[in-house]
């Protein structure tokens, strides 16, 4: 049974169809792994064994009836930021404790239609604010490659669960790198699709002009399978793109002849670790050997991306999080009048990073500072978008490292928010420009910690990104689950 974690969704679906395994057996296999391993990793905030077994049983009945669906009987984990009808959804925040959504997010509806099995909700930084999953109100998730280190964030639970073999695949969200950075630090695949490619309906908002839902998986094939299910226009999300969705599997299994890969000069920053740089340079060589042409490009406004991002995301967050007022859902702390009740509720319900960002966001939007910060950041965002437009005139994909360092130690940066923010330098620009990007395993450092390879594409070019990712994966075949967790 130990081999099950090495199988793709397509392979598992074949086994399920041929009755070589049942969904209940597959689900029990993952539930058992969760009971053995997750005490140490702490990826799940809310494992839901009964629901999982019920959904698996239903899937088995459908399989017996000859029904087909891309995820029929496949056990997945879900970031606790996506509304799941009837299942508590908290964003890892005390303020939403006990919130039971009366509806499913569009992606959850799509996963259900595709036949998935719900193993549980996965840990995250509170309201997706953070790069280490240390900001969860409930628990600190550990990096499966070294449990003294962080798994990245904010989708740290989603990344760690996939890298520990605690689900076949998972969903996360990415506002400034929250899928790609933890995927990179945990050595798995994580894709942030084009802004608007996947509906945000039912995704609890952090920064609405940046947030995007995407999959985590151990193979590029599974990333394509998941994206096939969740992508597409949704009338419930007015920013959703009304374009048809291609079959992402049709991009896999091709070489890289004729593909121009841009190497941005500005990403050779100080503070990038030697092993990260070395693995990145070797990865470029591999891509070239597989037929790609490497092209030098310039993204001149990159050094301003982090400042721009933290103005925009905190501004949007301060506005989005105004809804937590102790009236409609979640926590309420009584007070002497309504203002006092709001303050007591929000003071007790929000953790330190969320409060810090609400204050920053309120400040940059406040009268007298709006033009200097928020409007200025919007203008620089335009310059960053134009950088990409100009670069994509001479290349098809852009390849960079995912993070300047491998996973850092738990507690190391929690008191220094600015340093924590700067670790998102390579992932933030794609969010500002709304572009799709993937993190794939790119090797290991001398301590055995994974480094990620980051591939950015033009808007709606998830297919070409997956094509390159698949070529690289086929050549390198990096391990995605630490050996000690495979038995």
């Amino acid at each position, binding site marked *: 049974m130990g081999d099950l974690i090495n199988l793709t969704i397509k392979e598992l679906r074949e086994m399920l169809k041929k009755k070589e395994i049942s969904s209940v057996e597959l689900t029990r296999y993952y539930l058992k792994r969760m009971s053995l391993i997750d005490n140490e990793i702490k990826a799940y905030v809310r494992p839901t064994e009964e629901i999982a077994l019920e959904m698996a049983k239903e899937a088995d009945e459908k399989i017996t009836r000859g029904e087909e669906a891309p995820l029929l009987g496949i056990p997945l984990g879900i970031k606790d930021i996506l509304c799941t009808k009837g299942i508590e959804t908290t964003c890892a925040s005390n303020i939403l404790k006990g*919130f039971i959504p*009366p*509806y499913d997010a569009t992606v959850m509806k799509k996963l259900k239609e595709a036949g998935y099995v719900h193993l549980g909700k996965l840990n995250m930084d509170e309201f997706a604010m953070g790069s280490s999953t240390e900001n969860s109100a409930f628990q600190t998730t550990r990096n499966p490659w070294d449990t003294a280190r962080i798994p990245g964030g904010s989708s740290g639970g989603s990344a760690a669960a996939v890298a520990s073999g605690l689900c076949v695949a998972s969903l996360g969200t990415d506002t400034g790198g929250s899928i790609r950075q933890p995927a990179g630090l945990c050595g798995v695949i994580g894709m942030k699709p084009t802004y*608007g490619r996947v509906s945000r309906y039912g995704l609890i908002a952090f920064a609405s*002009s*940046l947030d995007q839902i995407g999959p985590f998986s151990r193979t590029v094939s599974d990333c394509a399978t998941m994206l096939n299910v969740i992508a597409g226009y949704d*009338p419930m999300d*007015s*920013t959703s*793109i009304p374009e048809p969705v291609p079959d992402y599997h049709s991009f896999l299994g091709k070489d890289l002849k004729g593909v121009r890969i841009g190497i941005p000069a500005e990403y050779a920053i100080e503070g990038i670790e030697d092993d990260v740089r070395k693995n990145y340079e070797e990865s470029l060589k591999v891509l070239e050997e597989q037929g790609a042409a490497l092209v030098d490009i310039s993204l001149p406004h990159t*050094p*301003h991306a*982090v*400042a*721009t991002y933290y*103005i925009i995301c905190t501004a949007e967050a*301060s506005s989005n999080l105004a809804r937590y*007022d*102790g*009236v*409609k*859902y979640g*926590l*309420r702390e009584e*007070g002497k*009048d*309504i*203002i006092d009740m*709001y*303050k007591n509720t*929000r*003071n007790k319900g*929000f953790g330190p990073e969320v*409060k*810090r960002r*609400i*204050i*920053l966001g*309120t*400040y940059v939007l*406040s009268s007298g500072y709006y033009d200097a*910060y928020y*409007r*200025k*950041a*919007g*203008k*620089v*965002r*335009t*310059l960053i*978008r134009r950088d990409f437009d100009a670069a994509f005139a001479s290349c098809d994909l852009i390849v960079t490292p995912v993070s300047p360092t491998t996973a850092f130690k738990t507690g190391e940066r929690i008191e220094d*928010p*600015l340093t924590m923010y700067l670790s998102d330098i390579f992932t933030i620009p794609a*969010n*500002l*420009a*709304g*572009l799709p990007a993937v993190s794939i395993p790119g090797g290991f450092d001398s301590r055995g910690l994974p480094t990620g390879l980051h591939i950015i594409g033009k*808007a709606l070019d998830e297919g070409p990104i997956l094509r390159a990712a698949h070529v690289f994966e086929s050549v390198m075949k990096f391990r995605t689950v630490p050996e000690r967790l495979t038995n």
Partner: protein
Amino acid sequence: MKITKETVEYVAHLARLQLGPEEIDAYTGQIDKILEYMESLNSLDTDGVEPTSHPVPVACVMREDAVKPSFTADESVGNAPARIDTFFKVPPIIEQEE
């Protein structure tokens, strides 16, 4: 200093956050550092550049004016921490005049 303790306290009040003295101290130092970093944007000439508020062009989306099922009143207030029947219960908002 880009920001003072008093400003942090005032902005926290605007955001309906009640901070303790230690929190105000810590946030003032951290936010000051972050704002200073953010001011690096001032080195860029952005005259005549239109700000981006959305990465993809957003048009006004229309839908069919069709009747569809919606949440019941009971479902809508189902998560409220305090309710009376199908109403949200809140503390008094307007003081009663004596």
